[in-house]
């Protein structure tokens, strides 16, 4: 259906004498009639919408002449649609539109609140006396990372800077650092790594201990009830399950190992900071087996197999612990052991080396031996320091001791795990297949005297470190998952447990075949016959 040509029927001018191919000027009256016909046609109101083409064209032309857009002919259809749409909007409305409070404005309010400067001069004096909680210079770190193309928008960095300052003012914090940002499906997490002042982490420990006590009491009550029940019914009992779950590996103390730092998270700068609970080895072991996206809500359940002991806050904390252990590096020699006499395994304390001389950037990029981990690696057990789980259960009841002896007899001793000592060079990190664990590069090749050495982790994509002179830092921007070259294989369900031990008392014997029965019968008859003969002989003897 193309546009009508003037000589086709439907145009209205195909009456005799008015073809455009004639040179003569047609009769004016007939022409007027044709024009009126055409106008009447244009004025015909549509049965569907009540508009007519004449008015519509008039409106379009008015709008075009008023606004005079560029290349009108290309957008004429859209203009036509807009004009039609405008018909249905009333100019005068008795109801006024409610002033919409967009969420944009609320967020802007929160951001503005960040800029409020608390207290006055008194606060500043206090800070000087207390020997400054170290608020990191987030903008400086952001500048160095930006040289490599890593980092957030400057505005967002500044908001994070201000919210860290608020965090430092609210909580009793000794040192604080912007750890990074983990993306989630619905919302993201901004994470701060914090060391509280001494004695401040105690509240949680007390609460946890109280819970453990109540648990133990509950277990004792249950045991007593079971014993009473047993005494009553000693006859037909179903076989007792011999399964005892493996002893729970205790989590590390606050301030050591995986729980060395405390982490606060928030979804957006301006929202309140939430403290993440300390991580337990069971959570780390499980987190190694699953791979799930974060939703952005800390209380979201983590539905997975093997079932994760905790909700998203625990999963987040476990991933943070793994990332920190795997990717926090510093230039070799920046940190040194506090006591050189200490055994390497137990050396958890390191301090800055005042005699550190930073190697030149080119060397830091070329050789991976110039970087070292300063966070202890996590063992398979889920802790940084290995603990023998059977030691703890000495305090428990006799039953368990007996079972332990059984276990030891079976030879199920757990081997002591040894991890890499602290401050290992990253050149010892294993790569996967043919992918090295780290990629190092300089931020710019054009201006080498001011370039910054950048490290990218290939095992945890999103973990970066930079070093420039004495300054260095680590950061993480990513989804929070480890890189797996072959893809993630979920854990298979364990094999079904044996319901009962199979022994001769329970196993079914095979039914005897007919031949065996006949043979047995024959043998029995022979035996009977022999006895009768003997009996007869005895009688005869008497």
């Amino acid at each position: 259906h193309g546009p009508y040509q003037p000589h086709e029927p439907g145009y209205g001018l195909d009456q005799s004498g008015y073809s455009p191919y004639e040179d003569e000027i047609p009769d004016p009256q007939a022409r007027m009639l044709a024009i009126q016909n055409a106008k009447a046609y244009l004025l015909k109101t549509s049965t569907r919408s009540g508009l007519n083409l004449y008015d519509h064209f008039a409106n379009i032309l008015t709008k075009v002449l008023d606004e005079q857009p560029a290349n009108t002919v290309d957008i004429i259809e859209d203009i036509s649609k807009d004009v039609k749409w405008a018909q249905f909007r009333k100019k005068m409305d008795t109801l006024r539109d409610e002033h919409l409070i967009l969420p944009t404005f609320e967020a802007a309010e929160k951001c503005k609140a960040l800029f409020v400067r608390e207290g006055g001069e008194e606060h500043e004096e206090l800070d000087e006396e207390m020997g400054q909680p170290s608020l990191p210079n987030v903008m400086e770190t952001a500048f160095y990372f930006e040289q490599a193309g890593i980092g957030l928008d400057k505005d967002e960095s500044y908001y994070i800077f201000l919210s860290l300052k608020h965090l430092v003012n609210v909580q009793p914090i000794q040192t604080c650092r912007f750890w990074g940002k983990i993306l989630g499906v619905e919302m993201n997490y901004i994470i701060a790594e914090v060391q509280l002042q001494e004695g401040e982490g105690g509240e949680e420990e007390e609460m946890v201990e109280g819970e453990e006590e109540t648990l133990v009491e509950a277990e004792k009550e249950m045991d007593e009830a079971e014993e009473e029940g047993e005494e009553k019914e000693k006859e037909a009992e179903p076989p007792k399950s011999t399964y005892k779950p493996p002893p729970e590996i205790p989590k590390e103390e606050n301030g050591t190992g995986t729980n060395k730092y405390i982490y606060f998270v928030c979804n957006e700068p301006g929202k309140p900071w939430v403290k993440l609970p300390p991580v337990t080895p069971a959570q780390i072991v499980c987190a190694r087996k699953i791979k799930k996206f974060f939703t952005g809500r800390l209380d979201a359940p983590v539905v997975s197999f093997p079932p994760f002991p905790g909700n998203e806050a625990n999963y987040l904390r476990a991933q943070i612990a793994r990332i920190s252990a795997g990717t926090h590096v510093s230039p070799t020699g920046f940190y040194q052991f506090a006591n050189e006499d200490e055994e390497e395994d137990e050396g958890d304390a390191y301090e800055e080396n005042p005699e550190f001389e930073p190697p030149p950037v080119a060397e830091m990029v070329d050789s991976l031996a110039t970087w070292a981990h300063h966070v202890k690696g996590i063992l398979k057990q889920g802790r940084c320091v290995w603990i023998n789980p059977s030691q703890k259960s000495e305090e428990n009841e006799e039953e368990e001791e007996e079972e332990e002896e059984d276990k030891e007899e079976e030879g199920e001793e757990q081997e002591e795990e040894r991890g890499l000592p602290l401050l290992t060079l990253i050149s010892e990190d294993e790569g996967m297949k043919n992918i090295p664990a780290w990629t190092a590069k300089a931020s710019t090749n054009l201006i080498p005297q001011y370039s910054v050495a950048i490290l990218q982790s290939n095992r945890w994509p999103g973990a970066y470190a930079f070093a420039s002179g004495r300054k260095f830092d680590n950061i993480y921007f990513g989804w929070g998952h480890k890189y797996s070259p072959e893809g993630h294989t979920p854990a298979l369900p364990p094999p079904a447990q044996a319901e009962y031990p199979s022994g001769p008392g329970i196993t079914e014997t095979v039914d005897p075949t007919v031949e065996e029965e006949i043979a047995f019968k024959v043998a029995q008859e022979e035996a009977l016959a022999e006895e009768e003969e003997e009996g007869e002989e005895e009688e005869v003897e008497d």
Partner: protein
Amino acid sequence: MEALSLPAALPLVAGGGAGLSPERRAALGASLPLLQRDYRFERVWFWGCIQGLRGTYYIAEGLGPNRAAPRSRLYSLNCLDWSLLTPGTKEMLALAEQLKGRFQGDPSFEYSLAEINAEASARLIEGGKEPVIKEEVRLIATIEQIDKAVGIVPRGAFVKTPLGSVHENRHFEGLSLLEAKKLSSYFHFTKPVNLKNKTLLEKADLDPSTDFLDSLEHDIPQGSWSIQQEKGGTVVVLRSLLWLGLTFYHVPMTKQYGYVYFGTGEKNLDLPFML
């Protein structure tokens, strides 16, 4: 994203922590207009970068008068010298899709085919060529895959003329905040697959000039897009969970939109386990 809107757009996609260093940004600002001049593109899009182990590929796309026509793709290792990528044959693309692992960062690196597909390598040997795939072929295959799977535009941003060619809609003023939160307001900017499967009732509601592409609603698996409003709703950011690293931004009620890929160039095959 449009090369001309790079300076304004990069801060909007920086929420994921990936971006460009000032040196690269400046280099792009200088070299992309030259690209437009030399190849006579009507539009130049900065597609993003694929990070290899030893180097990074920066990719740009050039568009002609019909925006839906196959685009020319160019890559560069330093944002200054660009090389045109030749579109590969279907077989080469299918083979390249089977390659796993990170990109090496060296365009002349050769992947040995024998490990992946013995038949194809045998065929190649018979044909007299070596059974290898160059990283360039893998690069173009990956870019095409990503564009086809997750290259998106807002609804109404492009119009299809009756003659069949596709242009930017100059009358597009941006999605409203409400529309911007829905997945159905975004389209895959590639040949539609699901359109013809729609029922007649649905098709009746569509506007053929703007609704000529597939929307994101029916993407498999469901939940493979993450929609977030950053900065309190001033920017709507969509991140693909299938190709981690693809970020799409749109400022509602304005004409600003675009997508960019900053990542390793690997498909996230674990997606069904992770949702």
